């Protein structure tokens, strides 16, 4: 039994229990409960971003755009056709994930900087499209009074129970990643990240696996987008612009990409900051810009990656004859 694996699993289970218990603890304080709910949405988003950035090695800056497509589609379905949220959310998410795959298809050949630039261009086009198709999006003004999902008896989901639903989805999202990574599919993702030419030579269908990854990451983005819209009750193109994508990327990179726990740590530490700096939104931009630079230059493995690296170094120092491979690639 690998003790590190056991350790990460225990940590994950502890975090899951904490996430499911906190809505009950925070019930009295609406502000903290709201911040908690936002953190849960961001944990879901960060876990999804991590699938592509951490495991396949591609940085999808159109992430927020996909979330926006799903959110607008979900609202359109509920408002114009009277669909229930629980029908509209999966439908819109599935559709948005397919769009994510379609938008990703042409960039299959691209890697590294060119993939990232391509996704940035797509994100910019999507943001412009949100502004210029006001029939669906109400343009820059945004849509407000978005109805929350309904409870089984038809009453709107609110307060404690909405927070709990968000916690369940966040835990399920992270748990799905944890389940996926050791499977053959997850291992193929890692092989592509390490060297896609070598992976292809070994018989891995790089294109098909990338498409699966695009679908999964877009699905995470989309589900998070639908919950974001209903939880906040207001969306505008600003909510789904490139800064949002970069922020979610920062959660993953800051926490530790290519680990299950890392993105969760990143989202939990960084996602509440905007709510604590309400008067100074622009200051938040400065802070996250500084963090982006610091993470890239000083902490390429993120907090959790650095922790694992140091632990591996200590272990290697303790037993010099057994070489350790526990440290993730940075």
């Amino acid at each position, binding site marked *: 039994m690998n003790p590190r694996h056991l350790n990460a699993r225990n940590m994950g289970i502890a975090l899951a229990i904490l996430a499911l218990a906190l809505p009950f603890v925070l019930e009295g304080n609406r502000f903290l409960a709201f911040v908690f709910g936002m953190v849960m949405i961001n944990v879901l988003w960060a876990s999804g971003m991590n699938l592509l950035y951490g495991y396949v090695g591609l*940085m999808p800056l159109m992430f927020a755009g996909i979330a926006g497509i799903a959110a607008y589609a979900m609202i359109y379905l509920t408002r114009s056709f009277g669909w229930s949220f629980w029908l509209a959310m999966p439908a819109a998410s599935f559709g948005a994930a397919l769009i994510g795959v379609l938008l990703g298809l*042409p*960039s299959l*050949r*691209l890697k*590294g*900087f*060119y993939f*990232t*630039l*391509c996704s940035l*261009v*797509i994100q*910019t*086009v999507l943001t*412009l499209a949100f*502004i*210029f198709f006001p029939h669906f999006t109400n343009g820059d003004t945004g849509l407000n009074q978005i109805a929350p999902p309904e409870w089984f008896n038809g009453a709107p989901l609110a307060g404690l129970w909405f927070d709990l639903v968000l916690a369940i989805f966040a835990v399920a999202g992270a748990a799905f990643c944890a389940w996926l990574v050791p499977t053959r599919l997850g291992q193929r993702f890692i092989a592509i990240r390490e060297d896609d030419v070598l992976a292809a030579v070994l018989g891995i269908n790089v294109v098909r696996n990338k498409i699966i990854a695009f679908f999964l990451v877009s699905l995470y983005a989309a589900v998070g987008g639908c919950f974001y819209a209903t939880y906040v009750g207001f969306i505008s193109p600003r909510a789904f612009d490139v*800064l949002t994508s*970069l922020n979610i990327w920062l959660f993953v990179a800051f926490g530790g990409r290519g680990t299950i726990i890392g993105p969760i740590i990143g989202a939990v530490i960084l996602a509440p900051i905007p709510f604590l700096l309400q008067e*100074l939104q*622009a*200051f*938040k*931009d*400065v802070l*996250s*810009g*500084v*963090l*982006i*630079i610091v993470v*890239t*230059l000083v902490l390429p493995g993120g907090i959790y990656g650095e922790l694992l690296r140091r632990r591996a170094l200590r272990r290697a120092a303790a037993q010099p004859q057994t070489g350790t491979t526990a440290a993730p690639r940075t």
Partner: protein
Amino acid sequence: MSDATLLILASTVSTGLILGAIFALVAAGVTIVYGCVWLPNASNGQFFLLAALAAWSLTGAGWGSALAIIAVLALGIVLSLLLEWVLIRRLYDVANRNVAYFVVTLGLTQIMSGIFSLTYGRWSDQFTLPPLVAGITMIGPFPLPNNRIAVLVIAFGVLAALFALLRYHRYGRALRAVFQNREAAALRGVDVRAIYKLSFLLGSSIIFLGGLLFALAYSFDLTVAWTMSVTAFAIMIVGGPGSVVGALAVGLVFGFTQAIVSIFASPTAATFSYLAAMLAILLFKPTGLFSK
């Protein structure tokens, strides 16, 4: 053709030339740095805006436009040196540094845009500089402000000087050698790191100059930064990363596109078309139109 049509035509041509020259300048700055250092500077639009805003502050404090321009260029060089020393040189030896640089400059973009909206964003939402040269020249029946003629002359003069520098000067030859083959250039005795530093300095200064010229010719707001970043990247990708000729040609085409589209539709439509062009090139010919 009626006089009105001719007037629109003339103003389109002059706007196209000015915008095209400024686009070409900024894109040349970006493409030189990318071709040489492998640094895709996503914050080029913020540099551009910083120069414009600094000139606005200085002229607002009573400085003459010419003096303000020189001061801002000097400031730009100092800031670029500082940035190179603090950030840029740390990644010179990283293998896949273009992704890292892209992310770092996106972070820089966020820092600078945050600072601008905390400071300048509170003072005004539209900024105008006093003209460099007063008066109006009649070209045939068309009035053209001398100020814009001056901007045009400076822009094309700098572009020509840049060409001469890259083609004939020792530094330009070394820079092109590094473009083509870093290892071979190093073996032939070129100090690659020094060339990186010089290129970053040169590229950033040209971007600063582009911002100054834009501010002289047009009034601007804080959103110009992001538009410029996107446009410069589109020009670089379409023209071929590292190709100064490509930057010039595509920059002029984009400038005229913007001038023509702005007559019929909003400038956003022009931005859309740049993005579409960049996407098409990225997908079908990632090396760009003018690369060898």
